[in-house]
């Protein structure tokens, strides 16, 4: 299923805390069934990395990763 930015999910750019250990992105489900993708502002310095990271988060939503049975290691490719 395709989700639409601005309707099914929202993207927020904000400064992540220092030394956070993430790749610069996270996705959270909202109470109304939509999702919020949070992106670290530092990624704006590298458009290619920002785009691939953003796509990774959108895939979490489209693949239903909050509700499927896949192990987290497979979802996040740890």
């Amino acid at each position, binding site marked *: 299923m395709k989700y639409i930015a601005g309707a099914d999910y929202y993207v927020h750019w*904000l400064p*992540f*805390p220092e*030394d*956070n*250990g*993430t*790749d*610069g*992105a*996270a*996705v*959270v*489900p*909202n*109470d109304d069934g939509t999702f*919020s993708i*949070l992106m670290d502002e530092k990624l704006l310095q590298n458009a290619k990395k920002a785009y691939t*990271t953003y796509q*990774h*988060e959108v895939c*979490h939503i489209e693949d239903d*990763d*909050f509700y499927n049975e896949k*192990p*987290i*290691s497979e*979802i*996040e490719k*740890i």
Partner: protein
Amino acid sequence: MFYDNYVRLCNEQGEGPTVVAKKVGVDKSAASRWSKGSLPRDTTLVKIADYFGVTVGELMGDEQIKPETERVGEKETENATINSGLEAALEALRNQPGRRALLSATKNMTEAQVLRFADWLADVTGGNKD
């Protein structure tokens, strides 16, 4: 005894004593001083032991150094434990009522970082009831 062990471990890794000295953050001339009998500081000893995956006791000759294959096996087990701990923390966050989230974690992310980041996320988003 320290220097003999140090050289032996360097040889096992195929590296020279001065190269390893630089890698653990000391001046390359330190290796020359060690060869003449002086000993590294305690903090440097710990760094060298960590670098080779041995204990300080083994490095100093107080304990017998385990075979390299055994040391590698222990290191892999340690890494596997770290990774499974990170996975468990991320999995818990995916299913945690009130603050569900999926993080794009780096391989080096720690459980403590996951918890701190989850707190920060909950502050920023106000949590979720999903």
